[in-house]
């Protein structure tokens, strides 16, 4: 099953992006926790594209697509903003005290922590493509039915 939505690259649209993911997760029968993780990852990815890729200009778009395969949800985000390299991002500080803790830099940490696989392809012609893959936990009741 596949579904898609195009949103304007503006923070006001983050809600629509999350609603789209929530709907896809419901269709996939995802548990609330998996749905929350995927919403967070997509929200953070969109926020990065809006603020860094498009530099907050607000005139770009983000194409979101969701594919449901056996117990796997694959979300792709395509944008035509400035490309970046997720590999170059520094490790996030999650342990230092309040005075030393840097403000910001949590977005990619949340993406990495919330999905099972990440793929990023910079493409100035067809658009930069970020793919997030989440393996869905099987609900307990379903396991019982099978067993």
């Amino acid at each position: 099953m596949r579904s898609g939505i195009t949103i304007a690259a503006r923070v006001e649209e983050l809600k629509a992006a999350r609603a789209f993911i929530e709907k896809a997760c419901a269709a996939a029968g995802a548990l609330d926790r998996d749905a929350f993780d995927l919403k967070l990852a997509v929200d953070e990815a969109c926020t990065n594209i809006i603020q860094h890729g498009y530099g907050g200009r607000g005139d770009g778009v983000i194409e979101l697509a969701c594919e449901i395969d056996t117990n796997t949800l694959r979300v792709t985000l395509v944008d035509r903003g400035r490309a970046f390299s997720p590999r170059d991002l520094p490790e996030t500080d999650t342990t230092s005290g309040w005075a030393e803790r840097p403000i910001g830099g949590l977005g990619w940490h949340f993406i990495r922590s919330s999905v099972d696989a990440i793929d990023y392809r910079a493409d100035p012609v067809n658009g930069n493509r970020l793919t997030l893959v989440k393996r869905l936990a099987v609900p307990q009741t379903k396991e019982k039915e099978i067993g």
Partner: protein
Amino acid sequence: MDVRVERREAIAVIGVTGSVDGATAPGLAAAFREEIGAGFIRIVGDFAGVDYTSSAGLRALLETVKETRQRGGDLRLAAVQPDVRRVLELAGFTGILKLFGAVDEAVASFS
């Protein structure tokens, strides 16, 4: 997201409802800043009605923790819901922020 402010003597209780993301977090940060600007450096964030936060919300929280503690005060959170708590844990914020089950508990912790 909605924000309502209630001042209880020297403590500002800021009740937040809805989702905190890149669009709404600046409003939350502004509400915190306004209280600090008015001299309320002891702040309780009532998060009972917050069902979602992204890193944008955590930025507002960390900024406020720094601002208040540097002035001898604090930001303490009450009634944080499980999903939001998990985001705080992912960021390692549960080691920084003081969390309480209820608003009254958080308010009392200042005395």
